[in-house]
């Protein structure tokens, strides 16, 4: 092959990647830019991307527009509780499905996959009624209990566990390790990337969840950050985009931080190909 060809190919590759990058990153940049503009700038035509003087005060305005401390605390409690509960449920479930053969395991696993495929919008009315029936409407529980299991997580971790050679588990059994110890000392350390991925996906989807808290909550005391940000729109009857965007930046900041910490593990989870 000639020298010219690979270079041309590489240039094309970069151009395509750049385009793709722009598609994904532009809304993000616009959010940050808008969050630093004045109200007048947000309405200007043609729109500006770089604000004349960065208006950090927008963030303060957003935070003062409602009980953001409460929202933030609620979001953290809800999301972390969900992740912890999911791990408690999905780790043993995945181990069972991956390494035990028992009567009905195939059927049960297809039920799990089915749960994975049913959209939440289908089940929200019965779940809502159930939660209302239990009389826990004024607590955070209705935002936690329905998400205590994670079908996708069970599926992903099961696939991961399945790759662990049977001999390792047998060696541990011969080393007189209990099943719990095998799970804790052997399977989990080997599955860190998968666990990180599941936790991150779960974190993102529940941190960003808007629909469910909107349905389930009717007071500021139990509302999460997403609802709080959405309510910024209604404060003065007119959309204060600069304030809303400042709120949005506050909302996605934790996700960014988590991603930066986990990205290595996540990439590993998807390229993982067994133990040599």
């Amino acid at each position, binding site marked *: 092959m000639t020298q010219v060809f690979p270079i041309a190919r590489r240039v094309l590759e970069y151009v395509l990647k750049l385009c793709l990058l722009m598609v994904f990153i532009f809304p993000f940049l616009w959010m940050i830019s808008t969050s630093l503009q004045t109200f007048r700038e947000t309405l200007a035509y043609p729109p500006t991307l770089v604000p004349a003087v960065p208006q950090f005060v927008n963030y303060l305005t957003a935070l003062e527009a409602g009980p953001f401390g409460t929202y933030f605390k609620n979001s953290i409690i809800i999301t972390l509780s969900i992740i912890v509960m999911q791990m408690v449920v999905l780790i043993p479930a995945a181990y069972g499905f991956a390494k035990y053969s028992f009567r009905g395991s195939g059927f049960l696993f297809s039920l799990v996959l089915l749960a994975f495929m049913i959209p939440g919008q289908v089940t929200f009315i019965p779940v809502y009624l159930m939660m209302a029936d239990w009389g826990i409407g004024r607590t955070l529980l209705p935002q936690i209990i329905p998400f205590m299991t994670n079908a996708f997580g069970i599926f992903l971790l099961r696939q991961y566990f399945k790759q662990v050679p049977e*001999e390792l588990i047998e*060696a541990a059994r011969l*080393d007189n390790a209990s099943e719990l110890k095998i799970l804790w*000392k052997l399977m989990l350390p080997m599955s860190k990337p998968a666990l990180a991925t599941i936790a991150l996906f779960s974190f993102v989807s529940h941190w960003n969840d808007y629909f469910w808290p909107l349905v389930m909550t009717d007071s500021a005391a139990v509302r999460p950050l997403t609802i709080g940000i959405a309510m910024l729109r209604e404060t003065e009857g007119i959309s204060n985009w600069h304030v809303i965007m400042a709120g949005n930046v506050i909302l996605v900041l934790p996700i960014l931080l988590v991603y930066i910490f986990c990205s290595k593990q996540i990439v590993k989870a998807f390229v993982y190909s067994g133990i*040599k």
Partner: protein
Amino acid sequence: MASIQLKQITKTFDKHDVIKDLNLDIEDGKFTVLVGPSGCGKTTLLRMIAGLEVQTSGQIYVGGKDVSKVAPGQRGIAMVFQNYAIYPTMSVRENIEFGLKNNKVPKAERTELVEGIAETVGLSDYLDRKPSTLSGGQRQRVALARAMVKKPAVFLMDEPLSNLDAKLRVQMRIELIELHKKLGTTFVYVTHDQVEAMSMADKIVLMNKGEIQQEAPPEVMYHTPSNAFTAQFIGVPPMNISAMSDGFSFGFRPESASLSKEKLLGAFAAHGRIVTREMLGSETIYQLKTEHGSFMIKSIDDSFRVDDEVHIAVKQDKLHFFDARQKRIAPSEPAYEQSLDLLRGRRYG
């Protein structure tokens, strides 16, 4: 130390008997090798002794105690796996220590044991390394150390050398023999490689299709195989076996035949042409085409060439006869003379 008894062991997979009514005594302190072609049930047998597989029926005794319902970790057994099965997220030290920890051995004693064993297998400098940074031979040693540190009554090994290169395999073979001598523990070793079996075993248990074909020390198995299968499984190249009438057959080891350009005399003699020649250094293996079929001949004389016309002869005491059921006929049996006559008849007829 402990002996192992298997009584009336049957193992069924999907309604198919892999092992049926098997009885086996493994002597205390001996190096016993289970050998056989793949799928003969030798690994299944080993796994049942370990408790990793549950027999469909029958009992297993270790040191006189029925362990049929005892968990693998409580049978006083250690096992070395084919692919080592080293815990990848633990350091070498943690790997060796894991079993001791589970058995609640106090920390000070643990450290002492681990360091002693590491010294023995030459891993002292690697205790804090992760397995992924070790070579194949070193991983093998970790697996051995992990088994040894528990001071088991029985060592089980499932083809532990098959992942090593040829040179290292020979070296580890010698180390295992020495290790056995030093520990004096019962070793049960599974392999499909008859050379490994011959070189290491005090006693070989040869299996085929879930049945024991013969249990004997290597030299007994080599010189007096109990049937045609054993005769052809043990030895490289395998025993030459050729059919006679009535389902009877005769055989001889490749090194038992004399080879010459002149006509030779013997209980069995034949004339043929050399088809292939493999020069191995100290000996040469010739493949000979004769009117009675094709024979492999092992000789220290490397002067013959392909297409040479040669004569072979085998003395009577080097001949083996097998009956219609493939069983070897001992010289003391009446059928032996009958077989000799058959051979003569064939030679002269």
